[in-house]
């Protein structure tokens, strides 16, 4: 990358010794006395002295050791005790600090710099088979105790409308567990100049390309310091970082507008090192050139084509058409009022029999792939997730589950000689939200032969090769979908002959995947993902990745989306 030059005055400021800011812990200690309550502040949650404010450009600290701070542990155990005193048969508690940093630019100006840092406590209880949840920002024993009491009171109030008791699948306790995501440079220790410098340098490169009128770019980082405890005896601390760099190049000429981006680099469960590897300054002219070339792209002729889908486009089709309908809460109707249900229902009629693709098709749910967004050590039920085949040799094999849902599939696991268990898919977007079933990484396995993107194109007589996520829409049971792409190339006789525009494919999920006839190999396997998968009421965001190779799908209906006013 290009190094951002800093002025002498700025440098003097940056290297000026600055007194460390008082930590949150110090305050809560002092404040607790007047509150007349235990006042411990979570050590891990305190404002770290190595905050971004003091970081010099290019200077990165090694990551600190990870452990559950005794004060945080004590506060969590107090919350669990309060829940039990209030009548809970089971309870869990999360105390977390959520940090967000975003920097946005357009052309040669910065439009927005925001640093967000919130923390709090969420307590979930089971009383007499009913759920209750309450969240508070008061991190004192009085505060978390009141949240536990309110959660129990809500659960008791709901008893009048209970039908069946909630029962949880057993899970081993993890009394002293820690986990950290695969990052080496904490983005929250990177200076603002490094971030701004990178974006503006990349924008400048894109702006040099003919007909590029607008360039927007941005960085978005999340750091979650997650502490969890439950009445099974688990106490878990996790440190999770994710990063996303976006860039969109807009070309304008002769009344035409063409955009490439903003998702030109996939988000990842990694740190600043991932942003550097993406090398947006070197790639910006390519992305800008693709937007400019799109100005003269040919409008697609409607009809049936063989589609060659790049992982940057395909991941979203996997997410929508295979990821969502295999969420067991949707299958059972728990999302009927919002996100929808699933065409893969009821489980006893589809597990082991529904043919979703050819025998070469294998789809694995996991929270273990290094650098993927849903990767985590322990889920928000306190479960260590496992890897599981959702589709095995083309046949539906399993669903995504939590501890509340796994018992619904006991019959299936017993039939297959498997130990019934949750797959570890419980997640809440923050301490302020209740956890529920969310998508793990759902990844399409590469083919046995190591075919590349180019091999798939070379094998195709009449097709369209599609790169990058664009417009996407799917029905509430995940049958009928329509997807566009950022870049569409016409393929004739094994060669790309030019860009197309106004392209979208319409599909019916089982028909589409059963038309899969070529899979890329291991070396073509890539991740695509998003920070913002929405589900639930109130709606929560989940970050998830999908690994996949490029694929070829035969004979798919392509429509032309171009209209004029």
């Amino acid at each position, binding site marked *: 990358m290009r190094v951002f030059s800093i002025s002498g005055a700025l440098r003097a400021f940056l290297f000026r010794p600055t007194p460390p800011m008082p930590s949150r812990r110090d305050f809560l200690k002092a404040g607790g006395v007047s509150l007349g309550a235990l006042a411990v502040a979570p050590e891990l949650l305190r404002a770290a002295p190595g905050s971004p404010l003091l970081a010099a450009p290019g200077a990165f600290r090694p990551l600190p050791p990870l452990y559950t701070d005794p004060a945080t542990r004590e506060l969590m155990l107090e919350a669990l005790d309060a829940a039990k005193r209030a009548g809970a048969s089971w309870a869990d508690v999360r105390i977390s600090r959520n940090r967000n940093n975003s920097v946005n630019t357009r052309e040669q100006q910065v*439009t927005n710099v925001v640093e967000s840092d919130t923390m709090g406590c969420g307590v979930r209880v089971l009383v007499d088979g009913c759920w209750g949840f309450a969240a508070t920002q008061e991190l004192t024993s009085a505060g978390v105790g009141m949240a536990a009491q309110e959660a129990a009171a809500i659960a008791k109030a709901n008893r009048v409308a209970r039908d069946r008791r909630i029962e949880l699948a057993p899970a081993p306790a993890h009394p002293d567990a820690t986990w950290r995501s695969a990052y080496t440079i904490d983005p929250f220790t990177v200076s603002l100049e490094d971030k701004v410098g990178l974006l503006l340098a990349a924008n400048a490169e894109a702006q040099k390309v003919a007909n590029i009128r607008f360039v927007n770019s941005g960085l978005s980082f999340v750091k979650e310091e997650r502490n969890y405890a439950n009445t099974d005896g688990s106490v878990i601390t996790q440190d999770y970082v994710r990063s996303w760099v976006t860039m969109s190049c807009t070309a304008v000429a002769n009344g035409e507008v063409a955009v490439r981006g903003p998702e030109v680099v996939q988000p990842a469960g990694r740190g600043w090192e991932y942003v550097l590897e993406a090398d947006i300054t070197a790639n910006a002219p390519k992305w800008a050139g693709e937007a400019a070339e799109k100005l003269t792209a040919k409008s697609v002729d409607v009809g049936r084509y063989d589609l060659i889908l790049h992982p940057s486009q395909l991941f979203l089709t996997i997410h929508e058409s295979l990821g969502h309908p295999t969420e067991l809460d949707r299958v059972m109707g728990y999302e009927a009022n919002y996100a929808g249900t699933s065409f893969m229902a009821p489980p006893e009629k589809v597990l082991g029999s529904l043919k979703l693709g050819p025998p070469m098709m294998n789809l694995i749910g996991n929270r273990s792939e290094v650098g993927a967004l849903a990767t985590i050590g322990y889920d928000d039920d306190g479960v260590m997730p496992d890897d599981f085949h959702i589709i095995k040799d083309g046949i539906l094999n399993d669903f995504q589950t939590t501890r509340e849902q796994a018992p619904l599939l006991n019959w299936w696991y017993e039939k297959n000689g498997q130990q019934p268990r949750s797959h570890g898919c419980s997640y809440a977007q923050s301490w302020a939200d209740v956890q529920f079933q969310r998508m793990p990484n759902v990844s399409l396995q590469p083919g046995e032969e190591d075919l590349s993107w180019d091999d798939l194109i070379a094998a195709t007589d009449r097709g369209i090769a599609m790169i990058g996520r664009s417009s996407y829409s799917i029905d509430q049971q995940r049958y009928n979908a329509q997807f566009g792409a950022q870049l569409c190339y016409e393929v004739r006789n094994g060669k790309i002959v030019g860009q197309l525009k106004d392209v979208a494919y319409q599909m019916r999920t089982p028909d589409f995947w059963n038309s899969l006839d070529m899979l890329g190999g291991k070396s073509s396997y890539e991740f695509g993902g998003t920070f913002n998968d929405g589900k639930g009421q109130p709606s929560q965001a989940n970050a998830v990745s999908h690994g996949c190779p490029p694929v070829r799908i035969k004979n798919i209906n392509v429509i032309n989306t171009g209209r004029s*006013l």
Partner: protein
Amino acid sequence: MHARLNNAMAANGVLGEADAQSVVERAVRLSKADAVNISVQSGRETNLRFADNQLSTAGATTNTTIRVESVFGQRRASVVTNDRTDEGLRRAVEQSEVIAKLAPEDPEYLGPLGAQTYTPIPAWFDSTAELSADARAQAALTALTKARAANDLTVAGYIVCNASASALGNNAGLFAYHRSTNANYTLTARTNDGTGSGWAAAEDNDWTQIDFEAVARDAIDKARRSANPVAIEPGRYTVIFEPEATANLVSVMRGALQARSADEGRSAFSKPGGGTKVGEKILDERVTISSNPRDPLVLAAPFDGDGLPVQEETWIRNGVLEQLSYSRYWAQRQGKPVTTGGNSLRMEGGSESVASMIANTERGIVVTRLWYLRAVDNRTLVYTGLTRDGTFLVENGKIARSIKNFRFNDSPLFMLNNLEAVGPAVRTAGGGSLVMPAIKVRDFNFTSLSDAV
């Protein structure tokens, strides 16, 4: 100071005006920046979900966040915290100052907004803010009891109440405070054979105005009537959109009402060759679209996120694009007045009922609501999406049968040029502070069938 913080938290956890003002004033006093803008958002949300004829999750979340934007010259940055203590506030102010000094100059920054005058809007109802968990459970029982007794139905629903306060202030004399409540109920009933689904909903600032019995009756009636749908050919149809479906499509025009993207040549309201379509007739003359924070059906906030007073603004009058929305910066640059419409949007209603629209239709389709709308082309506002939870064929003035859902590819700019009839405007419940009528349009473009129920 700690005692004051405790007093600041009312029983419902939402900051009152004096306490919000004290947070703003403390932050202003701590600031060493040329300008400092403070935003305090305080809220309590209570909710209850049910599905598969039983309760699922229920909760209460209380939180207050403070956003501090510090400005030195043209350099600025924001820090958000939920630590309301003196120390937390001091740290947020200092952090935002450190980051702001490092930020490049923002040529679009215009300086802090001075004191403004707002007319208060009474959007707060204790009935919503102080609602008990027992009352929510009893409300859920209205639908649960019916479905459990019926044997042919499964219901899923969501009850959510929000009580919130928003305060803005700075060191140039601005102070704004507004508090509001909102109660929202959505319900989906499905037939147990998996072939029928019906949705109904209600929303109001005042919990006591939500008619839980009526919502349950409507959703259940629609679920039963929509069972066993038949497939009919996709194509262009006369369509009667119920108010929720109208809202789904008309609200996508909001983004295009920004003057800047139109002036920059990248919106549906840009004129080919330069300029905008302001002053041109773009829609049927019965279409008037406006924003009004004092709309009696949606009591919204009297100021926007920058602290600018929100006035009633008409964007499209009798089919003519009357004006676009100008931010402070863009207004100054273009020599125009600032126009901020706030969050609400209303399409003026007419007098024809849905029943009458059906009676006057030889062949057409009734749509309850739309789902998963995504832009296909921002230049034309062509969106794709699907019908959901109650789609019916009309033949010879009567609902003839339930039909399978469709995917559409169409634009509100085409739809509102093909207008046949307009019903009374009502508050919709899908979110977004929208007041919309049922409408009947011709030649709406359904492009494929969906098997989804």
